[in-house]
């Protein structure tokens, strides 16, 4: 089966004064039709930049993004129209993403207008029902909606053109627990109802665990680990993933907590940019971590860029 989206050697640099920041530093990934892939990693790991490059909101510095085999990296804005219909982003903060002066109706109708769709009225009603928004909210503006409702509007906008891929960048980060649960249920239902493919970015590992069959762990622009979600989270190969997992709050006591794996605090402003980028914070770093880490095949389909991957990934 051909991947719906394929990313090859993607890099995105930003200039900061005289420095160059490698926000995304050589990422390869493939998104198969109907799949739900999660990306986790701390803030600054490059997750959102990667999402913005994949949706072509940013032009990558290097590397390519293919959609159904077509390289979309260099396409003109005009040629991108079909791609934009098919690959829709949903952002973290709907209040920032939605025009504050527009009503819900206008917000959801806009994509249809842009793409010259007919029968907009009916489609909007359909989508409203699909995302569980009541008819009477149509005349409201974003600030008169709850956080959960706003995000539903953003999702409605994203699916109104019947895309094949949603790139969801922390879609539940701005709402509380119960609204989050409702949004996750909605996203799951939409995916199975419309055969959508998801690229789901979150720093909330539990959300990823629930939503995604495959998970990618990023650290400072690079791939740290990738594989089936259960494998990556249950028997992580990379020390960084292990630390992520042991940082998740769980019900235990202070004694048990003291034995948990924690990163060493980052010191100074000068971060190393060769070898393993995590080594300076890694509690288990070895001298060989000064060299670029090998990509260890933990099991078929599960790889980790860590010297220690093999040794730590065995049965516990």
């Amino acid at each position: 089966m051909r991947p719906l989206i394929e990313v090859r050697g993607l890099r995105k640099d930003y200039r900061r004064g005289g420095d160059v920041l490698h926000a995304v530093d050589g990422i390869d990934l493939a998104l198969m039709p109907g799949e739900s892939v999660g990306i986790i990693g701390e803030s600054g790991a490059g997750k959102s930049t990667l999402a913005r490059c994949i949706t072509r909101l940013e032009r990558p510095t290097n590397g390519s993004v293919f959609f159904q085999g077509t390289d979309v990296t260099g396409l003109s804005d005009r040629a991108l129209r079909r791609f934009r219909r098919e690959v829709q982003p949903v952002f973290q903060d709907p209040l920032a993403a939605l025009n504050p002066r527009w009503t819900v109706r206008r917000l959801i109708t806009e994509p249809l207008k842009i793409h010259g769709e007919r029968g907009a009225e009916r489609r909007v009603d359909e989508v409203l029902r699909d995302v569980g928004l009541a008819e009477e909210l149509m005349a409201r503006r974003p600030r008169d909606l709850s956080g959960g409702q706003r995000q539903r509007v953003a999702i409605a906008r994203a699916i109104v053109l019947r895309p094949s891929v949603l790139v969801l960048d922390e879609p539940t980060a701005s709402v509380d627990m119960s609204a989050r649960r409702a949004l996750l249920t909605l996203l799951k239902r939409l995916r199975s109802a419309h055969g959508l493919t998801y690229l789901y970015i979150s720093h909330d590992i539990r959300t990823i665990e629930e939503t995604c069959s495959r998970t990618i762990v990023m650290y400072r622009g690079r791939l740290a680990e990738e594989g089936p979600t259960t494998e990556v989270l249950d028997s992580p190969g990379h020390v960084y993933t292990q630390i992520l997992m042991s940082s998740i709050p769980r019900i235990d006591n202070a004694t048990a907590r003291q034995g948990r794996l924690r990163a060493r605090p980052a010191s100074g402003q000068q971060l190393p940019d060769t070898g393993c980028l995590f080594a300076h914070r890694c509690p288990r770093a070895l001298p060989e971590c000064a060299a670029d880490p090998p990509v260890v095949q933990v099991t078929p389909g599960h790889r980790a860029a860590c010297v220690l991957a093999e040794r730590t990934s065995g049965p516990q």
Partner: protein
Amino acid sequence: MPGLEIDGLCISIGDHDVVHAVDLQVKPGTCVGLVGASGSGKSLTALASLGLLPRAARVTAGRILLGGDETVTPGRDRTAAVRGSGIAMIFQSPRAALNPVLRVGHQVARVLRRKGQHDDLKQRCIELLGAVGLLEPDKVARLYPHELSGGMCQRIMIAMGIAVEPQILIADEPTTALDVTVQADILDLLEDLRSRTGMGMLLISHDMSVVAERCESISVMWQGAIVEVGTSATVINSPRHPFTAELVRDLAHLPETGGLPAQSSSTRPADDPAREAGG
């Protein structure tokens, strides 16, 4: 009773009762969790304890005591004298809570000066920044908030919160904006400070897992009222209110890797050797 005591607190905004008859106690050295959805009145309860309610809101009944002294009653607010020194608070968006145009060292020094401390301010600031786990605190003191990460900003907020050694620290969603690894570090730091200084802590969160992990007892707020109170183990293992049950159901999704299964909560002895094998 020493510590913080909230007794039948009611808060109204206009004609709406937004907090009804809330009772809450935080004893020195303990950590009490306050959980609830957004809009349930958690933050208003906390803000009232510091006399920081928004203008539109007012206390209509009940009282708040700090160290046995009445600080808040309807129409009366004596929190100005204890704010900072008796009770302090840290917020969800540390970057928004810091002044963007002042160096962070300056902001920490302001807190000290406000409380009448004028000697060795610079040295004291650096000590405080070091105490909250910031490396190279002398350098950090000279930076502006925009030059710091979210986790560093929260550490600065904590340094300001503990600067005058309050009896009670209210932490309102202190880690919601942070990554999970940074969250763990910040919660570790708060726990460490609590055990070293003996201050009491009220940890407010909409995330039951954070509260369940760190607090001895939990109060659950729902639509302005406390609907459930108990030790963490009781609340987690046998929630009574449907809203609590819903929060606890979410906990069931906790991954069980490298740690303990969710159900083996604090009911088991701490030094169970079986645990060693799991890690």
